[in-house]
């Protein structure tokens, strides 16, 4: 499975994993599970439309993903409730199904877009995919610290940004949404629209349960994502099954393992050091 046409697949898969793991780290940090779920759905319609018109699918994906991300940002800024956003996205999904019903390749097309396929990224798309991936990774790494601050301590970040021109919290949010959209569009062909979400939250959630060091957690997130995607590709190739199946199940497994580890860690600390900080000081602030 490591030769010939599969080389490109492994390269693409690795890129997908790195981007998914890194962007996912902040998706979980910011609690953007909703956007991570919604943007791929919007992208699906774009892919379907592009396929119908014979255009480059990644292009269609990318455009619709960015539109969906910006749309979510705009709607929410205007105080739109997520019911509206959900409706808009369902409408986009329906549109996607309409486009696909018009093309001759209905069934396999849908299946691949929704659940991913091993050969999702073919050789011709490898370079654009790599470029997109590079952009995503570079932006996230460059904005690592500001994103950390704005995600974990938004009140303080807001106060900071109001006094300096540089990096207002609003711009940061927008940039992140666009990066999410780009990450979605390069991930979708391989993993599938419905399972991108799993890849972006499973590995990071597991990583953060294992370590509290932010840089280590981000790195671990990428590592776990790589392992997940590689295993998924291998499994899909070996048993001729959809990639999405493996991604979904493996991500869930990672998440559970991470939770299990965290539980053991907390339990062990409590047992071994009864006078430690965690036990000694009762929480004085009630957590909502």
């Amino acid at each position, binding site marked *: 499975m490591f030769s010939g046409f599969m080389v490109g697949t492994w390269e693409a898969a690795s890129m997908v994993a790195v981007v998914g793991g890194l962007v996912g780290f902040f998706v*979980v940090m*910011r*609690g*953007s*599970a*909703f*956007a991570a*779920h919604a943007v791929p759905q919007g992208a699906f319609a774009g892919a379907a439309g592009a396929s119908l018109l014979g255009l480059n699918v990644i292009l269609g994906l990318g455009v619709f993903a960015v539109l969906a991300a910006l749309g*979510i*940002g705009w709607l*929410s*800024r*205007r*105080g739109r*409730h*997520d*019911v*509206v956003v*959900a*409706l808009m996205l*369902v*409408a986009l*999904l*329906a549109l996607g*199904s*309409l486009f696909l*019903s*018009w093309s001759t390749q*209905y*069934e396999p097309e*849908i*299946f691949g877009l*929704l*659940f991913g396929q091993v050969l999702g990224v073919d050789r011709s798309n490898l370079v654009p995919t790599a470029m997109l991936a590079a952009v995503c990774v570079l932006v996230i790494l460059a904005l690592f610290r500001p994103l950390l601050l704005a995600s974990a301590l*938004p009140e303080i970040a807001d106060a900071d940004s109001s006094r300096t021109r540089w990096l207002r919290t609003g711009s940061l*949010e927008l940039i*992140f*949404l666009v990066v*999410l959209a780009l990450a979605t569009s390069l991930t979708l062909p391989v993993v*599938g629209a*419905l*399972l991108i*979400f*799993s890849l972006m*939250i*499973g590995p990071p*959630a597991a990583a953060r349960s294992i370590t509290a060091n932010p840089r280590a957690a981000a790195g671990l997130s990428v590592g776990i994502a790589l392992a997940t995607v590689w295993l998924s590709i291998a499994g899909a190739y070996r048993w001729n*099954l*959809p990639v*999405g*199946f*493996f*991604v*979904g*199940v493996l*991500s*869930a497994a990672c*998440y559970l393992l991470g939770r299990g580890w965290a539980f053991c860690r907390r339990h062990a600390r409590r047992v071994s050091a009864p006078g430690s900080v965690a036990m000694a000081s009762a929480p004085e602030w009630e*957590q*909502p």
Partner: protein
Amino acid sequence: MSGVWATIFQPGFFASDEVRTALIVGGLVAVVSGVVGVFTVLRGQSFAGHSLADVGATGGSGAYLLAVPPLWGFLALSVVGAGLMELIGIQRARSRDLATGIVLGAALGVSALLLYWDTTWHSSNGQAMTVLFGSIFALSESTIPLVVVFSAVSLVLVVLVYRPLLLAGLHPDLARAQRVNARLVGWVFLAALAIAVALSSIALGSILSTAILIGPAATAVRLTRRPGLAMLWAALIGVLAMWLGVLLSYDSYTWPPAHHGWPVSFLVVALIVTAYLAVDLTSGRRRSRHRPDRPPVAAAEPDEDAIHAEWVA
């Protein structure tokens, strides 16, 4: 006059068995979804509805594999999913979303597997389509009694917890004082929701089922503050959207570009969204701002708090 009639109702419309089944099932589904949907929207459980649909899809795919009527599959997993969600539901909002999302992912992954097996083992084409995007014309007449029964069950459940739900929404402390068991009420409602989701999944497919659940309800809630009236409106809008969608889909057989009709699910969703936009744009109410990339806290979304405060029993 008869020319106009024939254009609107293409020949064979009223004679067709599939159409009749579609209209009956669609109508019932719309009524149930409207009623349950209003509470879903008011309680801020739209995400739960969406999740249950995805989990239900696994059941639907499995049902095809086992050559069992898909409704049973959707139902079984929907209810199991609802139970799981109730269990996870005790934790804080954000981590609950994460946990729910992971479970969804696993369920969808399994759906992928099952749908793939459907196609290869049974060489029955179009299964993914039907489970995910629905095909109301493909329902057999034997589905109708099942739909009737489960619609009734769901409606009865809602009626049972109607007052406690309203009370819990209006005034949680008052509800506690009157010994309304919030958890039990929540569970009963979730069961009603699971059934409604399963029903709408066989009509519109699991991916699009959310539209009929929250679309008419969200529209109705914009029209009136009274939950009971909102339910009537939601059911009405839903039924109209369904029937009109069925009609248009039937008529569209000759339409471009592919000349094999436009998918009924798409048309229904388009109508629902149009109705919502029409109502929404003509009533601009001010809303509160929240972070763009995540929803308001699931348990008490700010906008729905405003609606809560305005509930009239």
